[in-house]
């Protein structure tokens, strides 16, 4: 009977992880001109040469025909609500700008939700300080008497905005599960590296798992492996990049702990880094140097360092 996922009660709080990703996004011609023109309080749309249909805001491709022959046009700042709802973000509506053939998604401001009706006339409310964003229009407010506007030629227009900074933060709380949970408990509490026996070949799988990847049968008993091992692969890292944990140069290594049949990724220190590629190579024997912290993660090992003149045990 398979035990996971309901086998061992795991009281470890989940692993928190945040991916904080920076971007510079290119809007392309239609959206680029639209965003560049909001500072002039112009609402840019596009008319498809083949279908004749008008989109506001401007699109590079006609939503109906897929045509790419889009002429940019100046759209009026008025229209009518075609649909609306209210979420945490505010009142979100679909609005048909006068003269357009497709709707525009934006916010409704300066109105009570209960007072809104489909068909209600609205006009754009411009922000005081433009930021080259769709939010340079704060939203649309009711304007019952606003005259019906028309689509006009755009005339001279700003160059399209080439790129726009953007940022996306994604937060996670990853559950450990029974196998990783016990392994990290053992690391944090007992300074002990544990895996489970592979049912494919003789040796321990780290991280432990319920099913052996190759035999696809349930893995065997838990086993402790020593904190010594052999470097199987290594690289001297000089590259600097965003999100990096430590400043280069350092050694990225894949280490096979004695008795394990998988590799562990860690860094190797305690050597003269100017001779890194001579001093550390496949076959180099290393030992874990534990840190003072007991977080129950791989960082409880500060790094690995070479064991001079050591020989790999013959049985793995």
């Amino acid at each position, binding site marked *: 009977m398979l035990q996971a996922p309901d086998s061992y009660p795991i009281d470890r709080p989940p692993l928190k992880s945040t991916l904080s990703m920076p971007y510079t996004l290119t809007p392309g011609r239609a959206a680029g001109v639209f965003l560049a023109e909001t500072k002039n309080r112009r609402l840019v749309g596009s008319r498809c040469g083949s279908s004749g249909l008008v989109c506001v805001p401007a699109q590079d491709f006609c939503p109906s025909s897929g045509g790419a022959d889009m002429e940019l046009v100046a759209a009026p700042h008025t229209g009518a609500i075609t649909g609306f709802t209210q979420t945490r973000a505010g009142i979100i509506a679909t609005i048909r700008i006068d003269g357009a053939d497709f709707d525009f998604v934006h916010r409704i401001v300066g109105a009570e939700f209960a007072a809104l009706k489909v068909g209600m006339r609205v006009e754009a409310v411009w922000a005081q300080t433009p930021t080259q964003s769709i939010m340079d229009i704060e939203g649309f407010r009711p304007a019952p008497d606003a005259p019906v506007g028309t689509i006009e030629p755009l005339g001279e227009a700003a160059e399209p905005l080439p790129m726009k900074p953007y940022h996306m933060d994604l937060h996670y709380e990853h559950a450990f599960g029974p196998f990783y949970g016990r392994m990290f408990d053992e690391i944090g509490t007992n300074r002990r590296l544990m895996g489970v026996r592979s049912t494919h070949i003789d040796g321990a799988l780290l991280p432990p798992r319920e099913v052996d990847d190759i035999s696809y049968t349930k893995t065997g008993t838990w086993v402790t492996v020593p904190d010594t091992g052999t470097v199987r*692969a290594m690289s001297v890292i000089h590259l600097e990049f965003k999100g990096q944990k430590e400043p280069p140069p350092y050694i990225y290594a894949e280490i096979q702990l004695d008795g394990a049949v998988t590799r562990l990724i860690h860094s190797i220190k305690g050597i003269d880094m100017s001779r890194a590629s001579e001093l550390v190579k496949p076959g180099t024997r290393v030992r874990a140097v534990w840190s003072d912290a007991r977080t129950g993660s791989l960082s409880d090992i500060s790094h690995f360092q070479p064991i001079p003149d050591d020989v790999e045990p013959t049985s793995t």
Partner: protein
Amino acid sequence: MSRHVGIVGVGQTHHSRRRTDVSQAGLVREAVDRALADAKLTIDEIDSIVVATGPVLFGAVNMPEKWVIDACGGRMKPVVRITSGGGTGLAGALAAYYQIAGGQHERVLVVAYDKLSEGALQYSISTLYDPFWGREFAVGIMGFSAAYWRARMDILGHTEEAAAMVSVKNHTNALKNPYAHVKKAITVDDVMKSRPLAWPIKLLDVPPISDGAAAIVLSSEKMAAKSTDRPAWILGIGYFCEADNAAARSMLVSEPLALAARRIYRAAGITNPRRQFDVVEVQEPYTCFELSYYESLGLCAPGEAAALIASGATQIDGDIPVNPSGGCMGANPIGAAGLVRLIEAAAQVMGKAGEHQIPNAKLALAQSGGGWANLRGVAVVSA
């Protein structure tokens, strides 16, 4: 049972370090327009669309097929996205192949792209690593790629000099490729002296970071004639994997690639790849991989890759040219790179590879892959 499937149209963008004139969607449209024009078709004649991209964190838009579909003019068509890391373009073509071979559709458009200039490449790709186990040490895919190369170096003789020769060959070939954006003649010495990034990987072992898109039209045999009288027939295509942290995983040979090659060669009647193929296109995220692929694809025996590159056999005028297009060294829009390799292989057997055409090429091999070097595919195309 299985129906014949051919590539009847191909297109790619002029790849570049940064395109500030088009959005991701606009980039896709360029490749789609070119592939459709090449196939003499309109989007209305396409039954289904497969979109392939690299990891979504490259581009800030989750499930981006749902955005770029408007730019493809693909409204109301079946659209699905296949992801498989760097090899996703070929994995996308594989899905499209079965849509036709399995009788579901007659013509399928495959579009693959990445606009890498818009994100933080190494940071986003480092999230490939298990958040519990090793991510804090990740250096994109460069860290483990360099480490595995180091493991092959002593045992298989994949030296820095041999890899440098791959770099020189591919850079030289890229000079003839109108779609490549790195156009630089270099020497082995330049590569050897270039700045180490993740030693043994040095700057000139690394392809550029590119914005680019590629598209192909696959067709059933019945419908192919409208587009061309010389399709590139797919004789076999497959994409295999291995568990990333399985017991005793080999760093010396790419087992999933060897497995894919064995299966697909059998399907395509290939018994001697070195002799039978007229041209080979491989996706080399770093130069060291091309050496490894020579061996896993059976172009030479294990341990003979360095001798193969040194012999000149894989040069554009050699007996088994590899990457006459310049491979990834000329342009590397990751999500598109696998499909670009298939396009280049197809263009060779369709006789329209232009300046880097191998004379009378009839049978071509394309290789692609991604992930933790554990997702690997091949395709065999013939005139």
